[in-house]
């Protein structure tokens, strides 16, 4: 149970949140036609006769879209329904050419599943009620002509997965964590690119409020929210608004709302009074979808290692729980780390280096990991140079900076710039002698019991060696020299 509470004028309130996420299925073709699905194409250039609902056109299910929905269901340990059915949801709108949307109200392809989220240091399981596949609609453009609206049907018929959560979330941060986790899973599975800016993932946010322990209040649904930040804002604003209404003696109307990010508020779109009667019925152009074991086996076999399993594997390699979490949060990071391991890097040092050095550098450069100037192979080589004593930690940092700039391999950088660490005891002893000679007073203090000065001698020696001395050797020789 979250301890998130909102203090109203009359006491504390809890928030109850459920999310319906629409995720565009990664597929080259639409759900029921062969038309392309590329984002950003010129209006009406990706529209088949079926998508435009020309007379006599018929839908034929696209196997790849079905496969992706099944794989997604498997990734959240959901029940996969071997028998599912497409219904028609009937309503008139100019962006809906058929006059109905083909969806799966009564018999979805994926049933009950769940998702584990981390909210701070709390772990919580959020129920997923169902995943069904359905067609997207087109888009109306009202700003192209003074008196007319134009219709772009590029999105018409694109496959969506509607992923419906249980009302199991109780704070904006839980809602945010759920959406991020869901996005990560979809991207691991490869069933949706999770690109919220391009609209390939968007959420309808169901929010209600109640006094602690009371029954569920009336909910509102805020449609088409397109970022994690906005989802969290919707929860916060909508909960505050509802509490305000209730504390003023009003009632919450079950209605559809939309979010205005510029004013950070939700606004009423339509109320239940003018709700449609969608006249759902089984689509007579399509037979029920029946999945056989071979198909399910193939779907299961094609699943990648998922974040939970990956984390456990990393932890078993000795990587800290925190680092394992950081490395698995996004599929690209995990892929990069796996490539690093494949290139022979030691697991713990590799994880530390990646979460520290690499992520820091990418942050600075404002680049996603897919665009890292350093490859996993080069990084493994760098870590190997540290492990075999060729590079000290500080030298490794220098070499890494040069790698980021030039894209060169670390071995070559070390070679060309003479950045090799030295363990030459004679040279180091000579420098130590110079340092001691120049700091006679500190030598005396140290020998008199000021142990903390040891670090000072290490620093002086390293500086004099241009950072190239082997710190272990420096330590040993200093101890010996200082007595």
């Amino acid at each position: 149970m979250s301890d998130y509470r909102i203090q109203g004028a009359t006491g504390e309130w809890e928030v109850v949140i459920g999310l319906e996420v629409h995720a565009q299925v990664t597929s080259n073709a639409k759900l029921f036609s062969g038309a392309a699905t590329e984002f950003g194409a010129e209006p009406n250039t990706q529209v088949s006769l079926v998508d435009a609902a020309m007379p006599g056109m018929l839908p034929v299910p696209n196997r790849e879209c079905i496969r992706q929905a099944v794989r997604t269901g498997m990734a959240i340990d959901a029940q996969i329904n071997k028998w599912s059915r497409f219904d028609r949801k009937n309503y008139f709108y100019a962006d809906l050419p058929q006059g109905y949307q083909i969806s799966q109200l009564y018999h979805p392809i994926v049933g009950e599943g769940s998702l584990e989220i981390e909210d701070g240091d709390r772990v919580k399981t959020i129920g997923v009620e169902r995943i069904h596949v359905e067609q997207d609609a087109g888009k109306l453009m009202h700003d192209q002509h003074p008196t007319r609206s134009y219709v772009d049907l590029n999105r018409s018929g694109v496959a969506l997965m509607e992923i419906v959560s249980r009302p199991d979330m109780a704070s904006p941060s839980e809602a945010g964590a759920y959406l991020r986790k869901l996005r990560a899973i979809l991207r691991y599975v490869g069933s949706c690119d999770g690109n919220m800016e391009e609209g390939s993932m968007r959420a309808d946010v169901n929010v209600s409020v109640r006094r602690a322990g009371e029954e569920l209040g009336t909910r509102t649904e805020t449609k088409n929210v397109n970022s994690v930040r906005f989802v969290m804002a919707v929860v916060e604003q909508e909960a505050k608004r509802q509490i305000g209404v209730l504390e003023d003696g009003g009632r919450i109307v079950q209605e559809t709302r939309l979010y205005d990010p510029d004013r950070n508020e939700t606004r009423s779109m339509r109320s239940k009074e003018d709700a449609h009667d969608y006249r759902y019925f089984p689509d007579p152009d399509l037979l029920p979808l029946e999945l056989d074991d071979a198909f399910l086996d193939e779907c299961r076999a094609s699943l990648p290692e998922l974040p939970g399993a990956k984390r456990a594997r990393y932890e078993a390699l000795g990587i800290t729980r925190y680092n394992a979490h950081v490395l698995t949060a996004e599929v690209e990071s995990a892929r990069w780390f796996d490539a690093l391991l494949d290139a022979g890097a030691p697991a713990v040092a590799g994880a530390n280096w990646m979460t520290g050095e690499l992520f820091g550098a990418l942050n600075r450069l404002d680049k996603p990991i897919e665009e890292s100037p350093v490859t996993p192979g080069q990084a493994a080589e760098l870590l190997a140079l540290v492990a075999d004593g060729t590079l000290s930690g500080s030298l490794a940092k220098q070499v890494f900076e040069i790698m980021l700039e030039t894209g060169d391999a670390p071995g070559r950088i070390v070679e060309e710039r003479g950045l090799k660490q030295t363990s030459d005891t004679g040279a180091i002893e000579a420098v130590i002698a110079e340092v001691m000679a120049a700091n006679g007073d500190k030598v005396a203090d140290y020998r008199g019991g000021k142990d903390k000065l040891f670090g000072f001698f290490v620093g002086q020696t390293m500086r004099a060696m241009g950072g190239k001395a082997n710190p272990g050797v420096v330590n040993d020789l200093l101890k010996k020299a200082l007595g």
Partner: protein
Amino acid sequence: MTVLTDLGIREIRDGVRVGTFSARDVADAFVVAVSKAKPLNAFLVETPDHAIAAATATDDARASGEVLKPLAGVPIGMKDLFCTKGVTTTAASHILGGFTPQYESTVSQNLWDAGAGMLGKLNMDQFAMGSSNETSAFGNVISPWRRSDGGNAPLAPGGSSGGSAAAVAARICPGATGTDTGGSIRQPAAFVGISGIKPTYGRCSRWGTIAFASSLDQAGPMARDVRDCAILLEAMAGFDAKDATSLKLDVPQWEAGLNASLAGKRVGIPKEYRVDDMPEEIEALWKQGIEWVKDAGAEVVEVSLPHTKYALPAYYIIAPAEASSNLARYDGVRFGLRDLPEGAGLQDMYAATRAAGFGEEVKRRILIGTYVLSAGFYDAYFTQASKIRTLIARDFERAFEQCDVLLTPTAPSAAFALGDKSADPLAMYLNDVFTVPSSLAGLPAMSVPGGVDKAGLPLGLQIIGRALDEQGVLNAALAIEERAGFVARPEAWW
């Protein structure tokens, strides 16, 4: 000298093959016949160029010694429900007035691939809704038949494939395509004294055929005899990946499999098809049919289809429900009619367009369908009707444990006069009482002429078969055809 337009499909095909006449001669003869027959109002669009081009291609192929295609040299009529590339396709509606598809329906494409040519697009009941061809936005089709007892009122050719029926009966095309949702091939075939078969649901692709009720619609041939139907159906049928309900099966060689002997076969007589007030002549024809199949060697057994009486009400819930949804795409946004009143918004445009574009019968069915699917009534109507449909299918399965085919009348009466029933939709719907049950069950069913009534008007007998047993249906129909010796034909008064 042979009158080319008196020839059927097989005769034309064989005559062209052996060179008795050229395909071009045949096409020319029918093109002239079509243009002369305008008073029948059977054709909405005439496409002489299409027919002549196919004929010329056939003659050229023959001249260069190529093996001719199965329908080479045969011109046919296309029901206007089939989308034909570059040729106006309206489903006899105003809302699709002037619509010219940029694509060819699978069934019509199959026919052109088999060498057939198109004489034109045939009139029909609007969106295939009707049993008399009085709902076309382009006027009634008039049956070529006249009563012999002095009644001179123009007769209904049946519906919805009324234009197809009239054209074949009038010898202005040797064969035509029809579609059958609840009897739209069989009832008009019976009314005009020709043959027509609705194959098993899924045999013919629905792709490119304007939808009425998707789970029932099925294309089929209409021709002068059983063999011609077999030939035409072979060319029309086949698996189509573009139709998710298409059957993934090879097309049998139905023509080669024709056999009029019913020895060892059992013919079932469903007792529930003896409806109240059935005209004596229909009853007599049915008895005669029973004698014919016995004569062909069949054993006749009485069977029971206990849910028959619920078929018509169930059909008139399911078909309009699907239609109400299927016809939602005619909204004035992308094609066809758009009625945009001054200052109208989107909803006003929909309302005005659909009010102006759909005929009364279509509107009636859209309203019924919308009602039976609406939230408060879905279970009371659509769910119940779907259950009845399952029970009816089970009735047939049980009956077919006792027999191979069923024999029934096709329609409860001979052709009636235009205008006789158009004021009473329920009386009109009763016309489908014998054809609807097999449609709900998706079974193959055929009408074959059995004789004429006192006024000299044709009457049909219906054969219903097991799923996929078109051959059994065709064979039983052939046995009847041979014994009935039906030769009556309408006088050319047009």
